[in-house]
């Protein structure tokens, strides 16, 4: 992935803030990317063709192979955001700010996937796309919470304000995860119904267990790969903006 250079490169005399590279990939990410790609192919083979249908869940277990990893990756993403937020408030470095924002974006993406594949599972199991199933409800509330975080990043403000405000929200939001879980669990506790996790056979063995773990590893790998690229893109965007300003100043000086 590369970004467009808006202007001609300026000499390093302009504060030494010129980005060394304009690409988001490196040797490490290419290796990781190929490994994840191979993992995804293997996952499709195991998840769709090799793994037998479940005794209780039937063919819908194949959706579960994707549901569990996407929701896990989302939670990992929000924990990364919270840690990066705390580190930003402590260290005040651009690195932590951009890492937190990049991770939150991916968390929202994985939550959207979770809600989508949860609804697919619901359509097959319940006959409707939506029931107030605890996990799905919690995910949707938290999805909206983090949409707010992303909306804050979009508000035009200076870098320091954006960083501080979003770091605070990153911390306030992550604390709400267990509280929302508990509240929704108790709320739905009165309405016993087939849930997306409630019917999973805890004694998953053999190919099913292997596929479930393979899916988890592959999706966490995918998250890491996407995070590195998203972070580098955010970093380069900031550099391109710096460079745009430097060039504009140089042009005005040349006019004089």
């Amino acid at each position, binding site marked *: 992935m590369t970004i467009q250079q808006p202007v001609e490169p300026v000499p390093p005399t302009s504060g030494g803030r010129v980005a060394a590279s304009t690409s988001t990939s490196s040797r490490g990410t290419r290796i990781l990317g190929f490994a994840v790609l191979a993992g995804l192919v293997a996952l499709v083979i195991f998840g769709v063709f090799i793994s037998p249908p479940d005794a209780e869940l039937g063919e819908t277990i194949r959706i579960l192979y994707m549901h569990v990893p996407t929701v896990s990756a989302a939670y990992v993403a929000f924990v990364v955001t919270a840690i990066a937020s705390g580190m930003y408030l402590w260290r005040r470095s651009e690195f932590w700010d951009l890492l937190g924002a990049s991770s939150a974006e991916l968390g929202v993406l994985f939550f959207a996937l979770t809600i989508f594949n949860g609804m697919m599972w619901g359509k097959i199991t319940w006959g409707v796309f939506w029931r107030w199933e605890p996990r799905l409800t919690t995910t949707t509330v938290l999805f909206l919470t983090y949409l707010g975080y992303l909306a804050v990043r979009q508000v035009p403000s200076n870098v320091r304000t954006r960083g501080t405000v979003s770091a605070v929200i990153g911390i*306030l939001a992550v604390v709400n995860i267990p509280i929302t879980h508990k*509240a929704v669990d108790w709320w739905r506790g009165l309405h016993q119904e087939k849930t997306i996790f409630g019917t999973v056979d805890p004694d998953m063995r053999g190919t099913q267990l292997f596929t479930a773990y393979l899916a988890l590893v592959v999706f966490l790998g995918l998250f890491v790969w996407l995070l590195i690229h998203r972070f580098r893109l955010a970093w380069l965007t900031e550099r391109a903006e710096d460079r745009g300003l430097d060039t504009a100043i140089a042009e005005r000086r040349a006019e004089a």
Partner: protein
Amino acid sequence: MIRDAALVAGKDLRLEWRSRVGIGQVLPFAVLCVLLFAFALDPDRNILERATAGLFWMIVLFAAVLTVQRTFAVEGDDGVLDALRLSGLSPASIYLGKVAALIAQLVVLEVVLAVAMAVLYDTTFRGWLLVAGIAGLATLGIAGAGASYGVVGLRLGGAETLLPLLLLPLLAPVLIAATRGFDIAFGRAAGPGWPWAALLGIFAVVYLGLGAILFRPLMEDA
């Protein structure tokens, strides 16, 4: 710290009393919501009676968003926030003062709302101890989280449309717990009420603690 917080709360409440925004705008809005829900849900089909607890807390949340916005909007004019920073008060005490002022306004709102519902929906408020406990803890939580997000909105240049998106999903557990707690107190739902009160208590403690800590970076470094 308590004295400083009382100073800030007193200032806010005096401002509110003199401007009459809460009494003249937020309270009528809450009563209007009571009417509008009746129009939407048809008062003759017993839906209102069953939904009273949920509607009560929905209206409180909507009105709380307005109150939070108002409480911090007064700090946005003429660099008042900078003056507050230079006043020598600690950020934590300013935060607690803001929370206290919010609590006072929300309690008035809840009392007016309860009276309006008792009259218009024919609601009988029973189980007073549980109702008071649930309302008190929920109000603490709403004010604690609201004050943090209020200053966030102020820092982002009064992003009015952003505050509901930020605050309401965060308050979803409060809505669930307070509604269930009220339903149990009213005798419309079975089960013990104390776990809901405990959940509200945990929410309040967590967000008051975090708010007191995170108010400093929001005030000084944003």
